[in-house]
């Protein structure tokens, strides 16, 4: 079956005072119908840029898609005009954001904000849309939805606001929901409730989900597939089981080890990855992770590794897995020349 969303070699970036910067470089991902893909990585790895590019909202943030393809249900999104995109956004795909309190417009009631979403994409009378908004509030687990619908965002808690944001996103039953760190700004207990809610709604509506998180715990709980991003490139993809059982890329291994464990020896020191994410202006040649990699080889400093198959459901961009599949996912990164080989 064809995946709902297929991203191929997506390159996007920003024009800055120091020249154009590629925030993501040849990112390829796909999400099957009803599946959840978790995009994990540190801040600045390009997760949010990827999600904004898919929504074609990157243009409003001063960025631009430079190359590549984004296909949603057979529809090439990079070819759409913004005029065409307004019919897709909020309808076929929707997005929820990190800061629920600031994601809602302070001067409109939450009911109005949900009803607007409905009326943008469906022919409904105002009263009908309002009733549907109340039903949506009930669906996302807000008690006394009739009263809540008439309230303003500042009268609601952060967790409630995020439920409203979810209701807005789901108003038109999108096929794809993009959630950019949806629980990061919330209390741990509220986080768990919201993740449960998202999972339950996903099952009910049969939608696919792209969940962006830096929290491996969230990824383990929610994902079918995981894609790990580092400094603007995807370094490893695979099923959640494969990635947690046998992380292949040294960066993924490092990420797993830096999750505090509740089991085992309590005094064991929390591992960290040495160094920090490189600036997009000064990316290292070759593999972008090599300056921090414990297994770096001479080849890594000059030649960017392509995606290589390391298991049935797993691929990693690392020379540790040899040359066998070279050419499988494209030639070496042109940015770094053709040295080595």
């Amino acid at each position: 079956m064809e995946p709902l969303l297929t991203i191929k070699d997506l390159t996007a970036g920003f024009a800055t005072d120091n020249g154009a910067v590629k925030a993501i470089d040849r990112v390829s991902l796909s999400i099957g119908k009803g599946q959840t893909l978790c995009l994990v990585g540190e801040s600045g790895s390009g997760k949010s840029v990827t999600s904004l590019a898919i929504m074609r909202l990157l243009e409003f943030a001063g960025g631009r898609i430079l190359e590549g393809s984004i296909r949603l249900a057979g529809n090439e999104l990079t070819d759409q005009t913004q005029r065409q995109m307004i019919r897709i956004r909020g309808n076929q795909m929707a997005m929820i954001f990190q800061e629920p309190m600031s994601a809602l417009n302070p001067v409109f009631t939450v009911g109005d904000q949900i009803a607007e979403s409905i009326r943008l994409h469906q022919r409904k009378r105002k009263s009908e849309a309002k009733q549907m908004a109340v039903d949506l509030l009930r669906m996302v687990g807000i008690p006394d939805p009739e009263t809540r619908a008439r309230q303003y965002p500042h009268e609601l808690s952060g967790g409630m606001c995020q439920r409203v944001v979810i209701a807005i996103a789901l108003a038109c039953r999108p096929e794809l929901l993009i959630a950019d760190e949806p629980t990061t700004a919330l209390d741990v207990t509220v986080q768990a409730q919201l993740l449960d809610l998202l999972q339950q709604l996903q099952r009910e509506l049969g939608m696919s989900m792209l969940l962006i998180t830096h929290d491996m715990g969230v990824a383990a709980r929610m994902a079918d597939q995981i894609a790990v991003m580092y400094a603007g490139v995807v370094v490893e993809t695979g099923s959640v089981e494969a990635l947690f059982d046998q992380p292949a890329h040294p960066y993924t291994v490092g990420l797993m080890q830096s999750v505090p464990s509740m089991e085992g020896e309590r005094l064991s020191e929390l591992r960290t990855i040495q160094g920090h994410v490189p600036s997009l202006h000064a990316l290292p040649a070759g593999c972008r992770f090599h300056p921090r990699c414990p297994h770096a080889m001479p080849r890594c400093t000059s030649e960017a590794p392509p995606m290589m198959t390391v298991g049935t459901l797993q691929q990693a961009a690392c020379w540790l897995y040899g040359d066998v599949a070279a050419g499988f996912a494209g030639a070496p990164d042109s940015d770094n020349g053709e040295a080595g080989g």
Partner: protein
Amino acid sequence: MTEYLVRRFIQSLIVMFLISIVTFGLIHAAPGGPTQIFLSPGLSQEAAKAQAHNLGLDRPLPLQYLKWLGGFLQGDLGYTFKNHLPVGQILWPTVGHTMVLMGTSWLLSLFIAIPWGIYNSTKAYGWSDQTASFISYVGFAMPTFWFGILLQELFALKLNWLPLSDMWAIDKEGQIGDLLLHLVLPVSVLTLGFLAGYVKYARTSMLEVLEQDYIRTARAKGVRESRVIYRHGLRNALIPIITIIGLDLPILVSGAALTENVFNWPGMGRLFVEMALAREYSVLMAITIVTAVLVIVGNFIADLLYALVDPRVQLGRKGGTAA
């Protein structure tokens, strides 16, 4: 709400009382006095003293103030030293004249500046925005009296298209058409002055709003760009603009002394300058009090508008709004 209004009213009374004391003190602290100004220079010291005694100017200041306050509370604004005219008779017509001039300029500048500033925020650094910036710099930097004189020179003296000054031609008093002709030049000067600030405020305020997360949410919902700006952005952008408008409201009556002088407009600004030079204490007190009332009313209107535009502001609730 009622409690809020009552509290607000009492606060205003206290503020007014303090303002009147300070103004009274300042006016009397200024060197010179009415006796030096309108008595004939040849008058003897004794005669001047007798005159001052007749006017009550030799009494201690606190007593003079209480006398003024007593009259004011009974609706008596006092009389001018010269000609002994009731202050109200001099003051009220000028209030109306100033409101015509300032009201026209102010409304005109708002109607131009807010839509223009909002438009410029969506095309920041485009040619329209650059033009507005240029006009703002000119408006801020150029003294109004100088700009006024330039306009008079060109349109009244050289081209003879428009009247030079005053509110009406001498034989056409009360005619609307003639008033409009007389308004063109002073209104142009004042509108430029107001516009310079407002167009920038509107632009900056909207630019800030367009950066907000809820604007991104609106776009993610599939809201088209014009609706993003005019429905989701505008109301939020207006909130800070309303503050500035409210604070500017008193100018409508207190007037622009310089512009009124250049164009010989019979308004309150010009009256204030004349009366300050003549040391007409009662008129100065009355003008100050009228202005103070307007400052307070202006702030109050701004707060009401706040509550109307921003649901987070609730009048009378603790922390809702500054009193």
